[in-house]
């Protein structure tokens, strides 16, 4: 190991340093000043995010176990920005509810460990590193989901998440073992050369896919989603739906487009069916939800279905549109969760009906929410439209017109339930609306960043060009 290879792992090492620093800080900060740990953690992570943007070389480490390149680097930055926004949005919640129970530091340590796992997962060059990353990213989140120990639903969420994710990663591991059995190697670079479409490899690929499909909550592996989102603290629900899903989509995309490319015949049809099922089930179930967290859970299932439209084509265009879509999705969904978080923290209200008349008392929050929902629904000129349009373009480029048609039908269905929330906020008048309140500065900053993202990311075309250029690496 020399200095250059350290620099390649800059993200991982820095984050590890932050985790260690936080442990030290936990020891030395006196109990009556524990609030400052939140400021410290956010500050450190902010610096880490900024440093992440410095350019990095393209190379492999540890004999190919760990690799990095422009696109992976870019995606780590996307995850960083997402987590930073999420920290800003949950700072108030932490200070008010969690630090008092003397477990503020642990929150950050667990969250950052999970993020570290994701870094390793998306940088992995073999299945061993991949699996380690996958586990490291999942286990801390299960602990976090059960973080509000006084709340029974939170405990339920934790246990549900850990059980189903254990099963899913077990199945995935089984699939990996089959791929290993046929190719004799766990390195991606070798498997690309050796794998061919036999029954055993196909089965292996399908089982492997299952593990990640669970993380992305694709139908039929989505049953945990709504319950966990509802029970878990909002920050964790938001983390699961944005960061965790984004990272899983990314690594799934890389593996399908490179390692499992010879098996395209197999997974192409599978994804075709799963995309249709995911879009329809996610959307149709979202129609009847009353709780905002469950609502966003089903909406995020449906969004995952749209992502599959880019996944099915397996080209540079597909890669670029998926990364672009996920980037925009991070901002849109975090904005929506941020508003839910702000309102829930102030008033404890989480139902759509509670939002009635919100615009007349809290216009700014309502506007943020509306922008976020429009972006999720894909209405121009906000960013979500561009993300979706390009995904559909990717699918159409390989002639999947019928799939695109079903997708646009789903866009229309989804518009209905997004408008239900807009209706509650803008159209309805309420006898006892949520009173006016001002959020603290972190929350406002967190929402502001998402709004800027939603407004700018779509229209600012050089960003897409940049992603497209980076995406050439895997094809």
């Amino acid at each position, binding site marked *: 190991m020399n200095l250059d290879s350290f620099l390649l792992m800059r993200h991982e090492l820095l984050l590890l340093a932050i985790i260690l620093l936080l442990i030290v800080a936990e020891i030395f900060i006196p109990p009556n000043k524990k609030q400052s740990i939140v400021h410290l953690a956010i500050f450190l992570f902010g610096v880490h995010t900024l440093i992440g943007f410095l350019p990095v070389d393209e190379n492999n480490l540890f004999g190919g176990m760990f690799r990095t390149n422009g696109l992976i680097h870019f995606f780590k930055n996307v995850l960083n920005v997402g987590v930073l926004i999420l920290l800003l949005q949950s700072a108030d919640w932490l200070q008010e509810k969690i630090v008092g129970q003397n477990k503020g530091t642990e929150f950050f340590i667990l969250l950052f460990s999970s993020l570290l796992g994701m870094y390793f997962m998306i940088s992995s060059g073999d299945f061993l590193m991949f699996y380690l990353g996958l586990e490291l990213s999942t286990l801390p989140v299960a602990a976090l989901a059960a973080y509000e120990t006084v709340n029974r639903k939170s405990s339920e969420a934790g246990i549900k998440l850990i059980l189903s994710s254990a099963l899913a990663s077990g199945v995935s591991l089984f699939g990996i073992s089959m791929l290993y059995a046929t190719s004799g190697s766990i390195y991606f670079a070798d498997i690309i050369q050796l794998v061919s479409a036999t029954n055993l490899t196909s089965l292996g690929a399908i089982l492997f896919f299952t593990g990640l499909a669970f993380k992305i909550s694709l139908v039929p592996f989505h049953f945990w989603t709504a319950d966990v989102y509802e029970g878990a603290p909002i920050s964790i629900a938001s983390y699961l739906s944005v960061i965790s899903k984004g990272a899983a989509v990314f690594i799934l995309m890389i593996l399908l487009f490179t390692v499992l490319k010879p098996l395209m015949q197999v997974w192409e049809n599978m994804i075709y069916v799963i995309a249709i099922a995911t879009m329809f089930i996610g959307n149709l179930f979202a129609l009847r939800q009353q709780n905002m967290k469950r609502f966003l859970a089903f909406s995020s299932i449906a969004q995952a279905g749209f992502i599959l439209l880019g996944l099915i084509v397996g080209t540079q265009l597909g890669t670029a549109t998926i990364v672009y879509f996920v980037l925009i999705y991070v901002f849109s969904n975090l904005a929506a969760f941020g508003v839910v978080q702000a309102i829930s923290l102030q008033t404890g209200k989480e139902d759509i009906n509670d939002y009635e008349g919100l615009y007349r008392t809290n216009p700014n929050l309502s506007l943020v929410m509306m922008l976020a929902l429009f972006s999720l629904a894909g209405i121009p000129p906000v960013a979500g439209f561009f993300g979706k349009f390009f995904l559909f*373009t990717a699918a*159409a480029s390989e002639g999947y*017109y019928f799939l695109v048609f079903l997708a646009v*039908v789903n866009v229309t269905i989804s518009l209905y339930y997004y*408008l239900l929330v*807009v*209706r509650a906020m803008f*159209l309805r008048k309420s006898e006892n609306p949520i009173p006016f309140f001002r959020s603290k500065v972190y929350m406002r900053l967190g929402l502001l960043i998402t709004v800027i993202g939603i407004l700018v990311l779509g229209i600012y*075309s050089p960003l897409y060009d940049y992603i497209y250029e980076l995406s050439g690496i895997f094809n």
Partner: protein
Amino acid sequence: MDILSLFIIVPIATILALVFSKGLKQSRIVSMVGSIVQLGMAINLIFAYFKERAVNSDIMVFTKDLVWFKDFNIHYNIGVDGISVALLLLTSIVVLAGVFISWKMNDLPKEFFVSLIVLSIGVYGFFISLDLFTMFVFFEIAVIPMYLLIGIWGTGPKEHSAMKLTLMLMGASAILLVAILGIYFNSDADGGALTFNILEIAKVNIPIEAQKLFFPLAFIGFAVIGALFPFHTWSPDGHASAPTAVSMLHAGVLMKLGGYGVFRVAMYLLPEGALHWSWFFIILAAIGVIYGAFSAIKQTDLKYINAYSSVSHLGLVLFALLMLNKTAWNGAILQSLSHGFMTALFFALIGMIYGRTHTRDVTKLGGLLKVIPFISTIYVIAGLASLGLPGFSGFVAEMNIFVGAFEHDNMFYRIATIVSVSAIVVTAVYILRVVGLMLMGPVKNEAFLTLEKVTWYEKTGILLLLIPIVGMGVAPLWLSDMILESLEPFIQGML
């Protein structure tokens, strides 16, 4: 800054100014100033267009082409011909009239005007776009504010109507999206690069099979907003629930996007598909014409009458477009313009009557000519224009449509034409019935005797709309020439 981009930038500036204004008084002044500037620009554009046309024989003039997303070959590409110039003028007049009519908008005035102007940005952008992607973006921008405009400021079952309208129009635009992608991925059929540029695609011979597949999608995608039967059901409910200015803008301008899009995209880019499918859509359009007219007879709510009348009149636009010849197309564009002014005027008048009498039920109204003579007289004039009396805009338009339609010597076309012509008679019935019930006769309600006189801003709004109606009827030739000239390249492209 080029002359066309200003049509986008001025409204954006207006919105920014609105964000910083407070209360009704400031908001309406800001919107009025913005809309007057916009109208000035539209009038200026007409003169500039004639000047430019004299020296420039391109299909589109004042073009500007900036690369937006280079990997998809998406451009911000704008330009106008005679047709879009005329429609831009229509839009700016209706928007300004709408601002005047909403002079007393007390509930959330700032938000109201912002939504109204966002809608107008969509419409302006749509008419100047030469790039399918940009056009589609503006199309959706024009539709979505309707949800808030009807839902917040509407009357009656407003939530239901707003949702129905939004979902149907956005659903249609979703179908349109498939068609646009289909056109895009076939735009390299002659070996060129993939492109969204309308003028470039028109030169490409898209494979016939693809044309047959995507024409219905493109046609329906646009025609839903043009109230094609049986997809018109959003329109009566939407109009009836919308506040006055929104009905005006919607029927006057927004529904014109349908005809324009059908013409500019579906027919121009997929001519073989149009030939293949025209019989089917002619039947639907003819049904719409007749059905709308008969439905209007049975209605008692003034807004429903006018909404169904719009279905009938706009059915005529689609009908004429499907006739695929120059005279009929000229008629279709003229009808779009004429109906735009006329129906906006109708909705403005209905809004005024409703604001005073608090009812829109014609059976409860009566003798209004005696108490509010100004409004009533204009109503009669608008009615006469609507039933196609010579001297008004409607006559010129319908004359062209039917002459053009009858040019086909095919039996099918002739029968369809005859059926559609008969709608004119029905139109006369429902217009005269309303005039008789509502304006003539004794005053039915004592309370009507003390109705408020017309205010200056209402008069201004009315006159803004009335002048073009009479102007088009008396001197249609310059407009018709401008349109015919612009139709020439499309005719050549089609045949």
